[in-house]
């Protein structure tokens, strides 16, 4: 069955995405979400950030972070709603919507990250 072969891949994406998100998101969120907006640390100037984001390694890291985090989200959200909140009747709808959202989000991420000058 197709589903049986896909499931291990989805678990791999879940745990890989979980590790990447855990390693990178707290520090990025601390700076861009809290310290810069509150004026506690001056944000990097435009030229510096553009230079950093244009670097192929940064692009790759950003892409991996976005794609893996989205699949981590899709997998965990699916099980939380279907098993955790006991919405088994809507599993047929929730599961495809979660993964399709992750696929669509990944496509947007790839396109926007490629477009960095």
């Amino acid at each position, binding site marked *: 069955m197709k589903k049986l072969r896909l499931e291990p891949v989805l678990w791999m994406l879940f*745990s890989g995405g*979980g*590790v990447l*998100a*855990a*390693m*990178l*998101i*707290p*520090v*990025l*969120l*601390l*700076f*861009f*979400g*809290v310290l*810069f*907006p*509150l004026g506690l*640390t*001056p*944000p*990097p100037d*435009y030229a510096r*950030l*553009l230079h*950093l*984001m244009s670097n192929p390694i940064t692009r790759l890291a*950003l892409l991996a*972070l*976005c794609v893996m*985090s*989205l699949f*981590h*989200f899709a997998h*965990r*959200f699916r*099980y*939380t709603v279907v098993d*955790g*909140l*006991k919405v088994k*009747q809507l599993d047929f709808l929730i599961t495809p919507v979660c993964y399709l959202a992750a696929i669509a*989000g990944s496509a*947007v*991420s790839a396109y*926007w*990250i490629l*477009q*960095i*000058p």
Partner: protein
Amino acid sequence: MSDAHVNPRERQQPVSRGWWLERGSYFMFMMRELSCVFIAWFVVFLLLLVRSVSRGEAYYQHFLGRAAAPGIIVLNVVSLVFVVYHAVTFFNAAPQAIVVSAGGTRVPPAFIAVSHYAAWVVVSAVVAWLLVGG
């Protein structure tokens, strides 16, 4: 679904939809699961930043201004709490997921967890240095 089709085993243990509100540990489990929503929000936030930097300096300044709106700051502070909780629970669970053997003996589980925390510190320091160091 009529009762006739319910598996007898399931009928023996009815679990309410609010089961996770019944105990502190269940509640924390649900909060851990809920962290994924804040991870998804961060991806959106990060992509908006990437997009603004691609479009030009005025857009970047606009992004910084929007990120400083009180509602967004509150959302990001809450997200930070959830994502840190996700990180701690994920790293603490890592020894159960990763079994490494070296020279025929199993690498101690504590070492696996500690190495994740060490990597976390290094990665955070590198990112901080790239953003504001030098």
